[in-house]
């Protein structure tokens, strides 16, 4: 690992951004590691939760936003529940995901693709259309055969519908997305 020059490489603005986004104060964390200890995903993370918190305290924006950890967090809330400093760690992880997504940095493509096809389906039909999501995801990700073996039994048990059920208010839901995107654009304009 190379030296981090804290004088030059501490991104104070980023710390403030996360504070503002999450409404949480990273300075409350005293690095006891309880979040890491309880996290079911630590073994899959490149940086355990407590380390993400530490990197945040040190203002290491790039390391955090490029990490897999923030995408592999399932928001199971164990960290938040057990944090002795009453930091809503899961909420901070969420904030980091949002920021990373906005900056187009996604280290876990598959998860993002799955989320995207999920949201597309909602945008399109107003509800989650499982088959659609699966197909959408498979096409985007190229994992064509993933979970293929599950298809037939699910069909036979009538658990997967081939035709999406579109709700009357589907366009209302779609509008939520478009309005959201417009807003986001304006924000970007405002802040240059």
């Amino acid at each position, binding site marked *: 690992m190379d030296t981090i020059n804290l004088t030059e490489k501490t991104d104070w603005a980023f710390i403030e951004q996360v504070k503002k986004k999450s409404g949480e104060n990273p300075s409350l964390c005293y*690095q006891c590691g*309880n*979040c*890491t*200890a*309880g996290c079911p995903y630590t073994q899959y993370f490149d940086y*355990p939760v407590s380390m993400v918190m530490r990197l945040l305290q040190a203002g290491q924006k790039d390391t955090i936003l490029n990490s897999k950890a923030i995408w592999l967090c399932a928001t199971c809330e164990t960290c938040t529940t057990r944090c*002795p400093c*009453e930091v809503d760690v899961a909420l901070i992880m969420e904030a980091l995901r949002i920021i990373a997504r906005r900056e187009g940095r996604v280290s876990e493509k598959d998860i993002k693709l799955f989320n995207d096809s999920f949201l597309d389906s909602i945008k399109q039909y107003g509800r989650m259309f499982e088959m659609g999501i699966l197909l959408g995801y498979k096409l985007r990700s190229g994992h064509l055969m993933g979970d293929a073996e599950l298809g037939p039994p699910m069909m036979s048990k009538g658990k997967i519908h081939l035709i999406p059920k579109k709700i009357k208010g589907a366009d209302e839901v779609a509008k939520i997305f478009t309005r959201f995107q417009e807003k986001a654009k304006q924000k970007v304009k405002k802040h240059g």
Partner: protein
Amino acid sequence: MRVGVFICHCGSNIAGTIDVAKVAAETRKIPGVAFATNYMYTCSEPGQKEITDAIAREHLDRIVVAACSPRMHENTFRKTIEKAGLNRYFLEMANIREHISWIGLDKELNTNKAIEEVAMAVSKAMQDKPLFSSSFKVNKRVVVIGGGVAGMQAALDCADGGLEVVMVEKSPAIGGMMARLDKTFPTIDCSICILGPKMVDVAQHDKIKLYAYSEIEEIKGYVGNYQIKIRKKAAYVDWTKCTGCGLCMEKCPTKNAYDYFNFGAAPTRAINIPFPQAIPKKAKIDPKYCRQFTKGKCGVCAKVCPTGAINYEQQDEIVTEDVGAIVVATGYGLLDQERLPEYGGGRYPDAITGIQYERILNASGPTSGHIIRPSDHEEPKTVVFVSCAGSRDKSVGVPYCSNFCCMYIAKQAILTKDHIPDSQSYVFYMDIRAPGKGYDEFTRRAQEEYGAKYIRGRVSRIYPKGKKMIVQGADTLLGTTVEVEADLVVLATAAIAADGAPQMAEKLHISYDTFGFYVESHPKLRPVETNTSGVFLAGACQGLKDIPASVTQGSAAAAKVLSLFSKDMLESDPAIAQVNNNACVGCLKCVKTCPFGAIVEDKLRDGRTVAKVIETVCAGCGVCTSTCPCGAIQLQHFTDNQLLAEVSTICQM
């Protein structure tokens, strides 16, 4: 009237954010002010000389010092002006440090505020009347509340100093927490071996009167003359007859009573003597479990007692003791395991608390010193210690460090290796706090010589898997989750204020912090005094501390009592209520409202009824003064005129 005003820079503490020269200049304009100056350190020797000189040179008759809080230096400056021949109550202080320079950064606003606060002080000073304290006799007996090591030390030092001591202990035996410990860090002395002799001294000292299994019912009076009501709780055993032979305990059929001494490490009998070295060594019945009380029939102990000491009809008894001072040494308590659900919340027999483990380690404990796990009485080979089990944890309301856990865990890890050579201990910690003499070396020994594995990280969860306890924690230095398959888990549960601590404080009229620990009158310079004169603190009730610190404080409290009692007479504070007989209409409202019963009805020669203040009893709260419909009863030094003078000064400016 010639008022002299002295404005202190307190180095840059005040001068940093207040233009002291300007304050002095503005003050000189106030009518009545004959002299005003500012000085670097007014409380210093030359600073005080500046005052005495000015009094002589300028013929000053009232003094205002604008500096720190009067709670800090009022006495200092009262002595100063007394030296210069003024009445000590001709002093007023304006608190321009704590209340101005330290809380505001705006120099202009601060300076302006300081000028006004000084003006207020001046206006009050102009109303100051000379007051003279009368002296009263001191009852040179002291009560020590709590029979732990701190209380015992205070009691013994006072007694050896020739004072009569009354010790009140709420549990059936003295010794407190230390009596429960197996060994002590960092020397690994046998705890009871070094405490035992002290306990015996307390019991045998002809100047110490011990009330065990007793509690403070009520406290009345004031420094030098307290009346203490003590409730001797019913033990259902006549202790004058009980010889402590223990036959009753042997024969008692109820074997499932909760053992308070062992913190429930194992059950005990419904009638029991807490531990072999108990002092006093007397039996007591726990009516919650005793069949005679629960089922109304049994009487085994009564049958077997050779001296017929058992008395199921025994009632609580109230006795009164008169003393001149009080030492509070009520110790601490421990967080209930239920508050830690992620560690099993007490549901798992093999996840125990540090104090329970201490009893298991102890030769006179429930397992006679053999380390066996509660569930199946097998010898554990892997023992995991979890520090900060509740400590430094806002979510359970204990944000502070419990002070001694790091050390006793190291000790217990060492002892575990001594007892079971082929055992392996793991210690989960966040920081090792070992600042005492020889302490850090001790925690190093636990690792270097005794091979305890220290893991830097909190434990997130403990759960049983087969015969093992799975301890799921983090090693933040490795940056990963770690798991240990333990046979026994020891939780260093957070130390908290003793239960009932606030209620006790209220009886004593001393203050306590948000966590129930008692507040000393100055955190640095008056660590054993309280704001109630004659009441002193010792041991963990003031803040968590280990044995040496508790003993030190016990002796310190004793020294304070001895110096207080070194005089036969005490000076009373003359700032008390005074009745103007001509103005008093004898409505006696004040008699009803006085919290201390210090005001009585009095008949004058002309037959008129008036109120009369008993000087020694009046504590100077002034409730009477604000009650009196005709301003006849006035609290000296805080009279209506003086306070109103301050009010109008501010309001006119």
